């Protein structure tokens, strides 16, 4: 009997029979998240319903030295929830209760499986919302948002998940239930936990900050003949000291896909569209709108539309928010890339992507959070054509090189996961990575919590690949101390 089988046999002490999945056909349905390029059938799946259950399962993993991976809705785009064939996949999709709504203090306490949008829906009537809005907000879970420090179109003005989560209850990799709060004195452990991609533990209860629904919202759709005009408009808007709630750009190919999927009716002949959303008090929004409209005209917009109603605003956003999945309509397969560049470098990087398209004969659709320079190139390919997948992979990697060359980053909001761990050394020195590993090992000395993600090789937390047991080498040599 393998270690995993022995552990599985003991899961019945903790969970109902229908909360433990061992049937191979069922297990296969959990073999990937939103990134289908990487697949691994989990050893066993656990559908947890409480923090206590998760803690008990994790304690078993700790006891047997079996790795575990947390998964929410399985919509991540970096393979952060890619299961381990030799491990336990702990799924939080049944933990979807909103436990508390405290409008006077602008707080809500939710379980990790609650979807991002469900929070907003629960408080909308009371004039509030939850600000971070990943494009998958109707399904992505708040636990996953915490793990990935998810962003979204409106993060330009309002910040990422880390700015909107004020407390987390988590199960540590040893199976202890602990609470972290932004009010804790000392090191910002909450800050370290958010965005740790499941390597420091599993969030089981999340306290989020609620925001007041803005008094006025104006959404502008500006169409340009090409991407350059849009890029100039973005720089000019930010340069004018305006911080819109969002500035999003889509190129011709992305527009084509969105039109095919949701018939968003963007202006015909547009080589690029810019979606600019302004929110705040009426006077401020009106003033900013006049400036944005002027700037768009000056930078060459040939059509400007303003959403007059919530429905019209939703129609504009629908095209943008469905863009990733919509690309499925124009290409059999694609890679969603996520990189960041300084806004000023946008034109050069886009020109570089154009050159890559020509060099490799691979199409790239561009969708981006232009305001903060967060690119989402969608690298299109046909997996039925031999070699195209590999070429697309190469293009995708080269785009990240471009981002790094221009002083940017290999991920803006999708996380490193399994997909980008190999690019980490291009951005960080060995010392940088070792230091990060120390943080990880402080939480997870045995390296059981989502191993194989974020870091290119398990360099420190086990000098050889695999699960490390025992004292960390750096600690042993006296070079570091573990708390």
């Amino acid at each position, binding site marked *: 009997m393998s270690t995993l089988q022995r552990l599985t046999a003991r899961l019945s002490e903790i969970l109902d029979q229908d909360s433990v*999945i061992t*049937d191979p*056909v*069922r297990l*296969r*349905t*959990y*073999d*990937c*998240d*939103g990134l*289908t390029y990487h697949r691994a059938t989990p050893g066993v799946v656990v*559908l947890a319903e409480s923090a206590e259950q998760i803690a008990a399962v994790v304690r078993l993993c700790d006891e047997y030295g079996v790795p575990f991976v947390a998964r929410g*809705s*399985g*919509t991540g785009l970096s393979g952060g929830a890619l299961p381990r064939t030799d491990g336990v996949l702990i*799924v939080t*999709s*049944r933990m*979807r209760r909103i436990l508390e709504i405290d409008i006077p203090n602008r707080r809500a306490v939710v379980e990790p*499986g609650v*979807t991002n949008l469900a929070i907003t829906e629960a408080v909308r009537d009371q004039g509030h919302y939850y600000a971070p809005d990943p494009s*998958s907000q*109707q*399904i*992505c879970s708040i636990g996953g948002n915490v793990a990935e420090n998810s962003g979204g179109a409106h993060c330009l003005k309002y910040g990422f998940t880390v700015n909107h989560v004020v407390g987390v209850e988590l199960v540590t990799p040893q199976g202890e239930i602990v609470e972290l709060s932004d009010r804790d004195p000392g090191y910002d452990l909450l800050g370290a936990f958010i965005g740790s991609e499941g390597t420091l533990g599993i969030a089981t209860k999340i306290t989020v900050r609620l925001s007041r629904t803005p008094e006025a919202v104006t959404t502008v759709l500006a169409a340009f003949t090409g991407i350059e005009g849009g890029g100039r408009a973005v720089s000019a808007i930010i340069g004018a000291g305006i911080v819109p709630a969002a500035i999003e750009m889509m190129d011709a190919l992305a527009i084509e896909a969105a039109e*095919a*999927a*949701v018939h968003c009716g963007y202006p015909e002949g547009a080589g690029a569209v810019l979606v600019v959303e302004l929110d705040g008090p009426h006077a401020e929004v009106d003033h900013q709108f006049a400036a944005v409209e002027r700037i768009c005209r000056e930078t060459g917009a040939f059509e400007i539309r303003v959403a007059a109603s919530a429905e019209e605003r939703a129609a504009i956003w629908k095209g943008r928010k*469905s863009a*990733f*999945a*919509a690309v*499925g*309509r124009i290409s*059999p397969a*694609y890679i969603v890339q996520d990189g960041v560049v300084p806004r000023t470098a946008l034109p050069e990087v886009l020109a570089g992507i154009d050159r890559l398209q020509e060099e490799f004969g691979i199409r790239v659709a561009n969708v981006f959070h232009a305001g903060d320079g967060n690119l989402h190139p969608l690298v299109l390919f046909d997996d039925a054509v031999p070699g195209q997948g590999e070429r697309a992979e190469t293009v995708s990697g080269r785009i990240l090189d471009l981002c790094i060359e221009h002083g940017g980053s290999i991920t803006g909001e999708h996380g490193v996961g399994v997909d980008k761990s190999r690019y980490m050394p291009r951005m960080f020195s060995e010392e940088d990575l070792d230091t990060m590993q120390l943080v990880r090992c402080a939480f997870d000395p045995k390296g059981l919590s989502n191993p194989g993600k974020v870091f290119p090789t398990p360099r420190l937390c086990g000098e050889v690949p695999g699960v490390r047991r025992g004292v960390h080498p750096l600690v042993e040599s006296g070079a570091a101390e573990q708390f």
Partner: protein
Amino acid sequence: MDPELIKDCVHCGFCLPTCPTYVLWGEEMDSPRGRIQLMDQHVHGTPVTDEMAGHLDACLGCMACVTACPSGVRYDRLIEQTRAVVEEEHTRTPEERAVRAMVFALFPYRRRLRAMRLPMALSKRLQPLLERANPTLGAMAELAPPAARPVRLPPVVRARRRRRATVGLLTGCVQGEFFPQVNAATARVLALEGCDVVIPPRQGCCGALSLHSGREAEAKRFAMRTIATFERAGVDTVVVNAAGCGSSMKDYAEVLKDEPGWSGRADALAVRDLAEFLVELGPVAERHPLPVSVAYHDACHLAHAQGVRSQPRELLGGIPGLDLREIAESAICCGSAGTYNLFQPVAARELGDRKAERVLATGADLLVSANPGCTMQIAAATRRAGKGEIRVAHTAEVLDAALRGLSPQTLGWVTEDAG
């Protein structure tokens, strides 16, 4: 199962929040994305295991995922193909087989349904006993509406005022037997709006139940017969007032694509849902005030399968004095789903309870839906909830009352009385 259709799924998960079984159980294999993964496993050689069949059977076929999918995955086609494969390759237990045989020998046949009406009404009292014997029998007893007075429809109802169209009316099996007053109302509304309404007396089942349950050969037989019936009737358009029937009739060309000659005949048959047709035609008859509050329920086979959402709301909203209310989570199925509440009574009941709670929360006087299955399901669920009553009616009945200047009190049957 067409591998090309399977490949369209990019695993984004946008379908999950709209899937009733995912909403209930929160597990991947009971979501559209997970079921497509199961289909993929089968295409790659995994046999239909009991587990696989269980998850595929648990799909309601509500098609909410088709509406939600940004990649345009044809899950409707996929699940239909898959059901046929499951029927062929999966061996059901003797009890399951017997119950299925009974349902498919009964519901598509109006005369047999008629013979069953009295026993079914009586069976209400025996419901707990039947429930213990077999959950499907228990569900049938619980769902059966009060026996309606039979309504004999003439073969042709002439247009009042100038004739604008000649239409055929599909009377449906369950609609025709349990809700004959809906067909009568439909014919009157169409006539008042200027249509000659042809009602072929010996029309059979349209094949919806068979098609949505993977009984391909039976579905084809019913489809051909229905096409031939309405061809003989010489009508411009066939108007359907039951959402499930309308959606399967709109799929005839696909169902019969391998039958020489039939695909073209299917294409030539114009099929419209009643609400869709009336909005296209435009109103001419006067609407009298109808002071009533209405919660409108989107039948999945109308909203998701046929994309008919705005038309019924437009028709109801156009009636002076009528207060139209939205039901929260309107995109989630009520659990009726054709034969689903008979074969999967536990899940169906949970979904029904969820829907009833939201329907009652609107505080409306009347629940309006355009599918007999939904009507029976939600009525049974509100009865179980025991919190206040709500009367139920079809869109056609509400329009009929407005056109004829009837009082809202004449509308609908009260769910409390049904017991």
